[in-house]
């Protein structure tokens, strides 16, 4: 089997792919990268927590103009996963305003980005509509 690596370290692969956050143990603020102290309460204790894999699209844009090499159009969004806000693309949907709507229910999905020279496959995540 091909070896896999996630696009970012807060994406956990396996049978149940999900995102992992660093949660402040005193105020429960969540961060996807490291903090020396909590941006909300300055607490210094954190624990790893699993982020819900389903959510609601709170905001989106359909990017039509981006850096060379970025395939457009694509849907970028802010997803409220049971109280934790997540940045991600909305995938497996036509990237037009008729098919993407505010408040839409979505779920985490993963897809292969390609295989490198060593034969390792990178896996990215996005959110797809729950039909």
């Amino acid at each position: 089997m091909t070896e896999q690596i996630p696009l970012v370290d807060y994406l956990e692969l396996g049978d149940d792919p999900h995102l992992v956050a660093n949660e402040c143990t005193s105020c429960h603020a969540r961060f996807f990268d490291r903090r020396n102290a909590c941006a909300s309460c300055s607490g210094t204790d954190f624990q790893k927590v699993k982020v819900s894999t389903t959510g609601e699209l709170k905001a989106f844009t359909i990017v039509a103009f981006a850096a060379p090499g970025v395939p457009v159009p694509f849907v970028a969004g802010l997803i409220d996963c049971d109280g934790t806000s997540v940045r991600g693309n909305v995938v497996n949907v036509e990237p037009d305003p008729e098919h993407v709507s505010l408040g839409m229910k979505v779920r985490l999905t993963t897809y292969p980005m390609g295989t490198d020279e060593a034969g390792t496959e990178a896996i990215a995540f996005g959110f797809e509509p729950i039909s």
Partner: protein
Amino acid sequence: MAEDVWILGIHMTKFGKHKDLDTVDLAAEAALGALADGGVSMQQMGVLAAGNLMNAAAGIGQQLQKQIGQTGVPVFNVANACATGATALKTAIMAVKSGECDMGLAVGVEKLAGAGLLAGGARKEDSNTWEPSGRYGAVAPVDGRIGTETMPGVFAQIGMEYGHKYGGTSFELFARISEKNHAHSTLNPLAAYQKKFTVEEIMNDIMIAYPNTRPMCSANCDGAAAAVVISDSALKKLSKEQQKRAIKVSASVLTTDPYQEACQILPDVNTLTRNAAEQAYEQAGIGPDDLDLVELHDCFATAELVHYDNLKLCEPGGAVDFFQSGATWRDGKTPVNVSGGLESKGHPIAATGIANIWEVCHHLRGEAGDRQIENAKVGLAHVIGLGSACGVHILEKSAA
């Protein structure tokens, strides 16, 4: 209690493409213009605060001194994203308020004509091996894979988020905000663009990041603006004419974004603007209903809408109805961006936070010509820089 501070002289260059002028030339033009407007000289300035975001390490303050007067006074070179100009002004105001000097000069300048996307404009190619690096252990660039880093896309989401929360927004609504600002710009000879657009033209223009089409985005251009600030006691020693044209700084506020859930996912431009507005109204002892005009940070049409609410120009959640009532057109209850705003006047980043003050002062002095808002006595200028920093200034006509 610190004494009041006034704007004695202020100037902005024409915004647009200045092929033959570099940043130092533009900064000098604005600075000398502001000094001449106030009837004072570089020799009288006790402090210089200056910003040029794209070359923040170059020390524009000292470069400017070498161009117009090396007096040896302290220079504060500031960089605070799109709030750089307001930060320079606030720095000069703080120096005067603290009593360190009687007069100070603030300058903001940028050369941006022809620039494309300022963030998310280039993405590194994927490497041949997936090697985790950086804070997120990313094996490849994430722009376009995990959301967007482009400003039109970020601010599009900020407008859409407001729509999700309160309803009533649409592509057409955002386009109509842009229609207003472009219509206003036709009266501003210093605007980079003075072209009226129909709402259909705006909606059918090139899509950048839905719902923002090209005319709904701030215009990259060259420009500079500068202001001379003075203490109340020093102003009283100047001529009647200088006192009459001086504009009172009734509030000068700078805030950063306090922690909110989601603020590190999609920038929260709302909380810090609300905080700045509340502090400014409190300092000035006036309310939003007293404002005769507002220049706010319409870096994108989607941003203007949320700031109606953040600056408390309308009821919470009422920005759509407020706009649709016609309130923010130049003949409305609270004219917003009668200069044409960043979408048409242009957005030479570090100049923006002083140029908006110039616009308000111009009206309060009754010197705004064809676009004069009649009998304007109080105005508010707002900027926001992602990261984030927010500047709000409230200005009042001299009673003299």
